[in-house]
């Protein structure tokens, strides 16, 4: 007789994918957000984990905090959809975006869009010049149905990492399969695999070269591309 039921293991398999998503941002995604003339706040799909960039007809919008948004437009307010207290006086081509305190997935675009754009207005992976779309780049959660392979972890890491997490949690669970030593073993293994994949995903193979100049000032300033610091350590040099 099996120690764990298939239902229990299937649930852990889904949880594992989501836990991996929490432990590292791995799935990059872009989509067109449908906008409506005169509507300033939109609710993003709940698969969005963090917003990386928003473009309006191809041009990037500047991210601002909610407080900065208040300073930019002190006389406007969004209380909730259809709320009579909403005040929206600035309409035009959007320049800024920020997350709104009405909902973790609410995004406010300012100035309020002056045109309606559809969710299929442009190709988010190859936008055209002045293409009619509001495109959002984000890290997203995995596809828990495992049908779209572009929305899951890559095959060289996925199975083993999920397996380690599932067994860690299964051996920790109450019942006849409980085994602390085994749980500790799989916990260590999971953390090791996550660290390794983080190194791959966050840029150890990106052949970036940092220099005081732009790399063209001296002829001997060249070196072959090699792994360097991941992009979250990026230095901006003006």
């Amino acid at each position: 007789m099996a120690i764990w039921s298939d239902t229990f293991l299937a649930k852990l398999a889904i949880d594992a994918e989501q836990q991996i998503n929490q432990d590292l941002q791995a799935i990059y995604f872009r989509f067109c957000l449908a906008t409506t003339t005169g509507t300033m706040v939109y609710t993003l799909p709940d698969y969005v984990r963090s917003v990386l960039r928003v473009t309006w007809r191809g041009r990037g919008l500047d991210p601002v905090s909610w407080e900065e948004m208040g300073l930019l437009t002190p006389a406007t307010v969004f209380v909730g959809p259809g709320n009579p207290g909403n005040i929206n006086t600035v309409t035009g081509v959007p320049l800024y975006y920020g997350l709104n305190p009405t909902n973790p997935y609410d995004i406010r675009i300012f100035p309020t869009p002056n045109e309606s754009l559809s969710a299929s207005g442009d190709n988010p992976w190859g936008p055209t010049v002045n293409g009619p779309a509001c495109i959002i780049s984000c890290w997203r959660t995995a596809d828990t149905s495992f049908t779209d392979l572009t929305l899951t972890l890559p095959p060289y890491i996925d199975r083993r990492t999920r397996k380690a997490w599932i067994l860690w949690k299964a051996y920790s669970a109450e019942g006849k399969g409980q085994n602390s030593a085994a749980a500790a073993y799989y916990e260590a293994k999971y953390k090791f695999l996550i660290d390794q994949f983080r190194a791959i995903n966050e840029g150890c193979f990106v052949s970036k070269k940092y220099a005081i100049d732009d790399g063209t000032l001296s002829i001997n300033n060249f070196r072959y591309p090699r792994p360097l610091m991941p992009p979250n350590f990026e230095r901006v040099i003006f």
Partner: protein
Amino acid sequence: MSTRLDVQNSIQLYLNNPAYYTTTDMNDSIQDGVDEICAFSGCIWKSATIPFVANLSYYDMLTLIPDYIGVVAIFNNTIKRWLLPQSRRKFNQDRIDWESAVGVPYYFDAVSHRYVVIYKKPGAANYGDMFVFYRAAAPTLGDLTNIPIPEDHITCLENYCITDLWEQNQEFTKGSDRLKEYIEDLQQLQVYMHSKRIPDRLPSLK
């Protein structure tokens, strides 16, 4: 170079019981080990020719090149120049609408394990090809396939397999000890692949 059969024999000798684990168990472990070690150490380098697509900024490399792990370099074969690795923040400083800008591709950035973005992008079809140099995933092994791991680091694979086999047998204490050895071996291989291939050329602070 060692073959899968060599590694299998070596593990059987170590475990002192050639019949306890089936050949299938052994082969599955060896395949898993090679997959993981090659992915984490980047010890397989390959190149592929990918056509530029009109108006496409983001290339799904993992779909275009099934054994793709990470980009090393890209050569624009149309203008005979290397694409320079650069960050998206720099692209944005250059043009706020950089993703839609059409022009000669001179730069690229690796977005994730799957996507690479180029800047700028060709606006018309049949622009030409790029040569992508990349770290590759391990091949599917047969008994006589040469294992693409440097011979002096093959113990890394053996340690992985022994850990895996003990794990299957719920020998977690032994497995934990061997896992530590495997991790140490893997780190040595990573250091070797990343910075000890050409010790004659010293890194500088430039």
